[in-house]
């Protein structure tokens, strides 16, 4: 036990000191969260400051009521000078004036420079409310839609995908390159002449890999929490279990690759060959529901989509174990098959025996 723990601790130390691995396992996914979060994260969380110039006619009051009933708009009333000044200062996205008696309905939209993407979004949202309020359709239907969109943010669906990606990368790429490297450089042979058994060596590696996966998850989730108000909705134990099973499935694939690859170059190309398509066919960056029919079956045989789906189901929608057990069983199956291949093809030595 002491030797297994010592090996695990050494593995963890080495993982934390390996800058290249840290980049792929932590900095790379973190960068995705930052970039995508900055571009899309705020845009979808609609919060539009609208200024209404008093006095309001009947149509104006109808628009004001429609806007107040959704959380997407923050409505302020004021004099023309005050509101236009606020628009210039940037504290209003859009300012509306309602000239005349309100029948036929008419409105003037004052807005900031169109180069600001938020201003464009705000204008189109305001136009929609104006149209709705003027016609026969009830404004209530619009506000209901807006409320839903505001609740599940971009980050809510994006983060579980990125988390799955980082688990895949550290498992498949990280473990396979590390192991082939150990073998090529004779480190495995050196371990072999100690009384430390192979099973313990592999167990220590699995243990440290899983601990790293948990650390990785905590950091990525914590980052999204702090910067983009991400809040996982599901049960923490179920989330943990999903992360654990996902990490196991991918590290087993990494083991298998290290076993069947004759050298580091081959291992790297196998690892990329497997991870790259999965990255884009797993619905992390865009939904696969619009993909052509012939692509759909492929996503069903790749392990990553199952982990993405399970993590989203739990973290984004707060579902329980009953909703994701099939995904987990598939991932455990992947773990078992890959592990059998890994043990079957394991070699201490890159030379012939």
């Amino acid at each position, binding site marked *: 036990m*002491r*030797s297994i*723990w*010592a*090996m695990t601790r*050494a593995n963890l*130390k*080495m993982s934390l*000191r*390996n800058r290249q691995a840290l980049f792929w396992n932590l900095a790379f996914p973190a960068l995705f969260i930052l970039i995508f979060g900055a571009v899309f994260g705020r845009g979808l969380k609609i919060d539009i400051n609208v200024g209404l110039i008093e006095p309001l006619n009947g149509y104006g009051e109808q628009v004001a009521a429609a806007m107040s009933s959704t959380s997407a708009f923050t409505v302020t009333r004021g004099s023309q000078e005050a509101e236009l000044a606020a628009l210039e200062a940037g504290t209003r996205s859009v300012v509306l004036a309602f000239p005349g008696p309100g029948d036929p309905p008419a409105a003037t939209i004052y807005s900031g420079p169109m180069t600001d993407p938020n201003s464009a979004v705000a204008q189109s949202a305001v136009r929609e409310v104006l149209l709705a309020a003027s016609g026969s359709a009830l404004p209530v239907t619009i506000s209901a839609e807006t409320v839903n969109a505001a609740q599940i943010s971009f980050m809510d669906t994006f983060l579980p995908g990125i988390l799955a990606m980082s688990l895949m990368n550290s498992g498949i790429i990280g473990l396979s390159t590390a192991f082939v490297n150990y073998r090529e*450089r*004779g*480190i495995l*042979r*050196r*371990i*072999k*002449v*100690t*009384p*430390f058994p192979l099973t313990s060596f592999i167990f220590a590696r699995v243990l440290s890999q899983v601990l790293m996966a948990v650390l990785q998850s905590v950091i990525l989730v914590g980052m999204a929490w702090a910067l983009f108000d991400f809040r996982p909705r599901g049960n923490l134990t179920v989330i943990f279990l999903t992360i654990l099973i996902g990490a196991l499935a991918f590290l087993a694939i990494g083991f298998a690759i290290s076993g069947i690859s004759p050298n580091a170059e081959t291992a790297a190309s196998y690892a990329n060959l497997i991870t790259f398509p999965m990255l884009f066919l797993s619905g992390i960056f865009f939904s696969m529901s619009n993909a052509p029919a012939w692509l759909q079956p492929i996503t069903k045989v790749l392990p990553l989509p199952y982990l993405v789906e399970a993590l989203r189901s739990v973290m984004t929608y707060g579902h329980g174990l009953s909703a994701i057990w099939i995904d987990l069983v598939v991932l455990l199956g992947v773990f078992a098959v890959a592990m059998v291949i890994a043990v079957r093809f394991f070699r201490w030595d890159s030379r*012939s*025996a």
Partner: protein
Amino acid sequence: MAIDAAVGTSATPSPKPPMIEAHGLVKRYGTHVAVDHLDLVVHDGEIFGILGPNGAGKTTTLEMLEGLRPPDEGTIRVAGFDPARSPNEVKRVVGVQLQSTSLFDYLTISELVALFAALYNADGSPERVTRLIDQVGLGEKRDARIDQLSGGQRQRVAIALALVNDPKVVFLDEPTTGLDPAARRTLWSTVQGIRDAGTTVVLTTHYMEEADVLCDRVAVMDRGKIVACDTPARLVDALAADATVRARVTGDLPMDDLRALPGALRVECISPGDRCEEITITTDDAQGTLVGLLALADRARVPLAGLTTRQATLEDVFLSMTGRAWEDEPTEAAPEQPTGRRGRRRGGKVG
């Protein structure tokens, strides 16, 4: 030709049982016979060197003794255990430094030594770790990471790891290959320190000088066989010729007179033109040959230039045993030291 590698023991029985005994070892890779019916005996407490050119089968032999490779034929006993039958017992009593093993780059020396202590279930306390690192002369580097060390320092770390389980015998596979001469000498004194502390050392090398200076006994290996095995001094002494005399001549010296010089065994002559310009005389009586040559040159009034004599080395042993010149990278100049310091501990016993 002396092929019996166990000569050392058969002549004078050692009071203790040998640390390592191997008989009839054979290892084949496909049709290639890497190790060909090899016998060897390593005594307790000696530095035993296996000297041979690249591809002679040194590493394969060592790996069979360590239990890393099963022999196709033959028997091995290491500290009383058979590596094939009791691999774990052997692993506990041997320390191993593998050829060109690199180590976990991202650990410090202390961390690495402590890790290996744990893998052996040996004492890995900070005091012991420090002592082991001091023993290989890396005391001030103990908190440096492996990837910051030079090649010689890494080899010394590998040796510290080989000592972590207090082994009875340490195997070092080409410990100084690729090191500069200064680092090589530092490592030699480390290895001698290990031997002086009572641990048997078995090492392979393709450096003549290393075998000569460092080893108590040397097995000269070629093409999977041990062609000679004794102390370096006795190996050289056993040669028919123990020196060569060389000189440039600027006149005519009759070949017959040269061949008739006292002790002369073979006379070679380099003659770019029709005249003999440089002569090389292989001799078993350097003094007699030299005196005779000087008298001969004097009588013929032929000036001699660049007169040198060279004592025979293990290189000549290899040449005489295999009939082939040493094909490896050239070794440095033959050591200047007298042979008396060789076989310090066992010199009287082996023979």
